[in-house]
């Protein structure tokens, strides 16, 4: 016993000592991808297909767009990820962070669109919302209902109070928490979109940008908007049980759960594949991934993965990604983007 124990202890100590050689980045033969949870369901499909053709399957972590950028921009070397996914464009500040950490050459690839839908159970009534309705129903402070140009704490309790054409049910919307990229996009596209329809609120933007953002991107906290966690499946399940509630989530979840939930039209447009792709549906955003060029050739397969992602059979109109709910880019844009991606064109920072 004593000898055995000593040996194991020595082994453990050796393992720790080995681990304590600083900066020893181990060589890696699988691509490491981080980033947006919205792009995750698409990137994983590509990775799997890529892995089936005799390559090592890339490893994908769902860290959120911001978290992914942070990891991606930490530096060059195999301990850092090779690719990051994002459900929004890289910010100027993130590009600068990358540059200052030696991540000089980055290739940007726009892969498609994702729509954010407001849906309820099929047992409930399908509704038509305008962006203004969404703003009035969900913002923290809204213009006084008597018509004067002042803000009051959101007084609306039912949809009918917001807009007489809507059903007389309590406002109850389940949606993602502030850490989610979906929530960012929803605030920016839907709530701000509705906010802008009030000229006097829009005018604040020129005077005081941060005040404008505080008004137009805030969500009420009095219980009408329920933060339901990042798990969109959970929202779908809750909607099924409560036909009076509405949920906010990505189009791919609507697509996979037809028959359980139905989406509301926004500004008269139904969130369909085509309407989101053409930009007619107002609450849609672009999805991206970013490639670290310094790792191409160091970690095997990066070029192959990019090629697989940007091939017609993947992101084309009838590709396998569209079956998973990704809305493809227009034909021309797709062609030029594929070319740009495969030649690994570097970003200059000017385009952001």
């Amino acid at each position, binding site marked *: *016993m*004593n000898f055995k*124990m000593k040996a*194991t*202890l020595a*082994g*453990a100590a050796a*393992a720790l000592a080995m*681990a*304590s*050689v*600083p*900066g*020893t*980045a*181990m060589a*890696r033969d*699988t691509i*490491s991808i981080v980033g947006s949870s919205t792009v*995750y*369901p698409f990137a*994983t*499909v590509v*990775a*799997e297909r890529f*892995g*089936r*053709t*005799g390559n*090592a*399957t890339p*490893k*994908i*972590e*769902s860290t959120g767009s911001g978290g992914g950028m942070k990891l991606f921009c930490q530096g060059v070397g*195999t*301990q850092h990820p090779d690719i990051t996914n994002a459900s929004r464009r890289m910010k100027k500040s993130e590009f600068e962070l990358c540059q200052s950490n030696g991540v000089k050459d980055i290739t940007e690839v726009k892969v498609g669109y994702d729509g954010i839908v407001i849906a309820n159970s099929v047992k409930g009534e399908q509704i038509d919302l305008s962006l203004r309705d969404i703003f009035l129903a969900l913002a923290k402070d809204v213009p006084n209902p008597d018509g004067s140009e002042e803000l009051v704490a959101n007084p609306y309790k039912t949809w009918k109070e917001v807009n007489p054409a809507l059903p007389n049910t309590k406002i109850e919307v389940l949606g993602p928490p502030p850490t989610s990229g979906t929530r960012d996009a929803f605030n920016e596209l839907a709530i701000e979109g509705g906010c802008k329809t009030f000229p006097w609120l829009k005018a604040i933007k020129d005077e005081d940008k941060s005040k404008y953002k505080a008004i137009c991107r805030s969500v009420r906290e009095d219980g009408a908007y329920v933060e339901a966690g*990042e*798990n*969109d*499946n959970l929202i779908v399940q809750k909607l099924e049980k409560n036909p009076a509630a509405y949920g906010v989530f990505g189009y*791919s*979840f609507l*697509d*996979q*759960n*037809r*028959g*359980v939930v139905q989406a509301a039209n926004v500004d008269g447009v139904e969130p369909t594949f085509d309407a989101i792709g053409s930009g007619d549906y107002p609450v849609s955003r672009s999805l991206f991934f970013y490639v670290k060029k310094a790792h191409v050739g160091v970690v095997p397969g990066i070029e192959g993965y990019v090629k697989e992602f940007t091939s017609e059979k993947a992101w084309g109109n*009838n590709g*396998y990604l569209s*079956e*998973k*709910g990704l809305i493809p880019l227009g034909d021309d844009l797709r062609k030029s983007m594929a070319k740009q991606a495969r030649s690994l064109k570097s970003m200059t920072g000017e385009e952001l």
Partner: protein
Amino acid sequence: MSETTEKVRKTLARRYRAEKRFKAFGIGSIAIGLMALVLLFTDIIGKGHSAFVEHEIQLPITFDAEVLDISNPRDEDELNYGNYQGVIRDALAERFPSVEGRQDTRALNQLVSTGAGYALRDMLREDPSLLGETRTLWLLADDDVDLFLKANEKQREDSRLNAKQREWVAELEASGETRVVFNQSLFSYGDSREPEQAGILGAILGSLFTMIVTLVLSFPIGVAAAVYLEEFAPKNKFTDFIEVNINNLAAVPSIIFGLLGLAVIIGLFGLPRSVPLVGGIVLTLMTLPTIIISSRAAIKAVPPSIRQAALGLGASKMQVVLHHVLPLALPGMLTGAIIGMAQALGETAPLLMIGMVAFIVDLPAGPLDAATVLPVQIYLWADSPEQSFEALASAAIMVLLAFLITMNTLAVVLRKRLERRW
């Protein structure tokens, strides 16, 4: 009758009632606990049992060299890029000759899983002489078809299949060209984004490697610490301080250990992300207090008379510990270790920080390969948009529960078997 007896008699009924109430409270508590357990099990088994089987569709497949675009089935590259979907497409077109038009053909082709193509490739690799032959094969059905076939009449109305697809599937079903088989892929593959091809073997292996690292590190360290603190350490302020800190460590939220792992083990020591070695080290930190505390309790339970007898016979302090105290305390220590391991097995929070919450398809071959663990796999599946993953997540929960029950039973059996009474 004396006065005292009189008094006792009077209160006797009340005391019996009080005792009955007391017992009833205990039974009630156990009943509540059991009910929660039954609820959990019925919910999980109700949702997850269907994931253990899957449907297959029968089709006559011709391994046509021209369609496959393979001239030499022994060439690995040609094999990998063969057009297996094309062969399946042809077989489907032959089975349903009336289907025309792009839209409909596409819908028809969606009935068979993309995994079927890879199965054909593997068959061809095994037996190159199949090229040019026709075989009637059972092919894996798509997850939507599988859900449709598993659903009852009413649920079928909500299926993702369109009207034509339903018709085709119903036709196949009626003519016996579909069958239910045990879901083998569940136990033989890693993760996949196609529910019908997804498996938990990758996660089981990841959990196994992580647990091995945790056990190898935490058990010796924990036992050594406990032995020193109980048998050798002087009782002073400093050892009191250490004791407080160990107990404190047991109460630290596990995510903190993950942050530590990220900053020190990955950041400073440069170990790769997402590997079981790092996961095991982090979980060691989490398990250590449990092992130390239970080991100390086990050592304390060894009667001092045994130590004194050994010392009296001339044994040194180390001999007393190694020959007498440790063997007698071992069952208790093992129980503590197993319970600590079971805790670590169900942990996800610290692994989130070190990148083990990831989509990993390839099976890990050792503690330095990227891997995920069982609870993380459950979390990832529960978060996937495809409906079939809900059942898969429940099935994975059942597997995890089976492991936990085995480990805890082992702990109880060990205690019962090896325990000594004085």
